[in-house]
């Protein structure tokens, strides 16, 4: 059972090795990288490739580690007790299973995605250390221990907003998704839009990498933005020549709004394009 990318996901060699190591050694895989380089999609694609169920746990700034294990809904129980509901006698009725619990009790090996772990409180990863290491936890309310039947494949993504604790990092494999080079990018485009005009892709990629190399951009466009842009270009049915237009007054490429998301960046790019044109004469 080796992961080598899927029909809709181009995985580079180094990514494959990291994923396979995580699968073989049953340790979590921590994925970082520029926004929009396919960190979250990776987990979905691993699940697809291995034909395993996917569980996603989106982490927010208010998420607590405990919520991934289980939550005891004391408030509903209190309310039910006031209403004289029968369910109140069994505490199990008020224990809500979290994503880790679901993953641990799954019969087939699932893929668990813990998305954007850096969004949570600084203590969050530390609170999950033991659970991710031993793949078991204790439910105080009922006194039972939940132990993983099969150790799930855990993919954790981070946008680097907070540093993760060392103890946590030691237990993971790590992969940094580098921004794809041109060759890989062409493959990615091909996978997403099979049969797309070669000339269109070539010109679009020229413009795309030009924009990315513009010094001082606040936000560089990413893979997902390139794909959106290409989709727009195809939807508008623009001829490839439109991308190469040298007309006056058309300094920025068509539909550039999909790539540049910030008016300062648009101005900057316009200014540089203007200078470049003037130099060319």
């Amino acid at each position: 059972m080796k992961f080598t990318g899927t029909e809709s996901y181009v995985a580079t060699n180094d990514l494959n090795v990291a994923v396979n190591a995580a699968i073989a050694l049953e340790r979590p895989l921590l994925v970082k990288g520029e926004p929009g380089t396919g960190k979250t999609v990776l987990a979905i694609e691993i699940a697809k490739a291995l034909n395993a169920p996917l569980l996603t746990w989106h982490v927010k700034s208010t998420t607590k580690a405990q919520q991934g294990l289980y939550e005891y809904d004391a408030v509903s129980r209190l309310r039910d007790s006031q209403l004289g509901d029968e369910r109140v006698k069994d505490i199990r009725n008020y224990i809500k299973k979290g994503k880790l619990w679901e993953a641990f009790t799954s019969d087939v090996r699932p893929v668990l995605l813990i998305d954007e772990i850096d969004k949570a409180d600084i203590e969050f990863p530390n609170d999950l250390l033991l659970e991710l290491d031993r793949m078991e936890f204790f439910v105080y309310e009922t006194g039972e221990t939940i132990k993983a039947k099969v150790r799930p494949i855990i993919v954790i993504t981070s946008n680097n907003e907070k540093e993760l604790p060392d103890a946590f990092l030691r237990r993971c494999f790590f992969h940094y998704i580098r921004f794809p080079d041109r060759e890989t990018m062409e493959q990615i485009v091909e996978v997403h839009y099979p049969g797309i005009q070669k000339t269109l892709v070539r010109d679009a990629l020229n413009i795309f990498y030009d924009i990315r190399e513009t010094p001082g951009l606040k936000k560089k466009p990413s893979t997902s933005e390139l794909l959106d842009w290409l989709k727009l270009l195809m939807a508008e049915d623009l001829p490839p020549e439109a991308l190469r237009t040298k007309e006056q007054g058309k300094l920025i490429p068509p539909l550039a709004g999909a790539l540049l998301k910030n008016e300062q960046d648009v101005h900057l790019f316009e200014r540089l394009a203007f200078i470049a044109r003037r130099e060319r004469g």
Partner: protein
Amino acid sequence: MFITFFLELRKAKVPATLREYLTLIEAMEKGVPEYRVEDFYYLARATLVKDERNLDKFDRVFGQCFNGLEFIGAGSEITAEIPEEWLRKLAEKVLTEEEKRQIEALGGWDKLMETLKKRLEEQKGRHQGGNKWIGTAGTSPFGAYGYNPEGVRIGQDKSRNRRAVKVWDKREYKNLDDSVEIGTRNIKIALRRLRKFAREGAELELDLPDTIKSTAANAGYLDIKMVPERHNKVKVLLLFDIGGSMDDHIRVTEELFSAARAEFKHMEFFYFHNCVYEKLWKDNRRRHTEFIPTWEVLRTYQHEYKIIFVGDATMSPYEIVQPGGSVEHWNEEAGSVWMQRLLDTYPKAIWLNPVPEKYWDYTPSVQLMRQIMGNRMFPLTLDGIERGMKELNR
């Protein structure tokens, strides 16, 4: 097995631990990588490096330790098929007269070739790296990079060597090293360290007294009351040195400024020139007409503001210690007096200096300013900002 490599990594300040090393061995035993150096490189990287800032260091150490590995691979014959003519021609082009004499001293070309062959023999089976054997850019006259940066590669015919440049030799992660690159997003993340602590313990919480009161008012039926989340309350005062010697550092200062603007809700900024005196201003073009007295700043912004000075602190020492020392105007009180006033009002203060830390000792005014700041001066690099934020949080 790879203990030398592991130790070299630690020496290069890649924080790999024993546990991670054992994981690597375990993965090797389970046969995760196929038996190719590249796969091993990827696996070792995923296991031992946990932060993209260390990837470049890792690449360098890997290159050092494993260079030449593939041509001493198990079972392969050592081939040292170097066209001697070619080598000699190359050497004539590259070597200086003096170096040529040194070669002569070694016994001339024939002797050199002999030593080379001998070394290759000795090297059989050893691939832990080191600086005697054939490797990169070493002191040994043999091996890649030995003669020039392009490198005279030994015994590597095309078929064995898929790519001339190894993945780790490309050093693609160079600009993720935090001592080098600085960009808006990176700065934002560094500045977020300040926010992080302000948000610590932030959560949606049950307002117990209010819940009890409301429940009672509600005839005993539960009426839950929550209190809203606490927000980032960090207040920051940024003072920028502008003009003069700071012109060299405009880009990085701009980046810091735009990052800080996005990151802090309560942020105020002012400009000064070289040192803080009785006037500060917000628009550099109208600095002489529209200014704000420093006293007013001290009165307006409460002491819970954290203050960050950004400047190169490079000036004549008189500008700091002497009344009337300013280059621009007559200042009644010395810059150090004003600095001290600011520091007394805002105990949480740091100075970020775009001049690299290693040059600080050569400029007396930097040392002086550092003294006034009580050593709280940090370089304007990611690492420096991080250290500074830590200081502000203490």
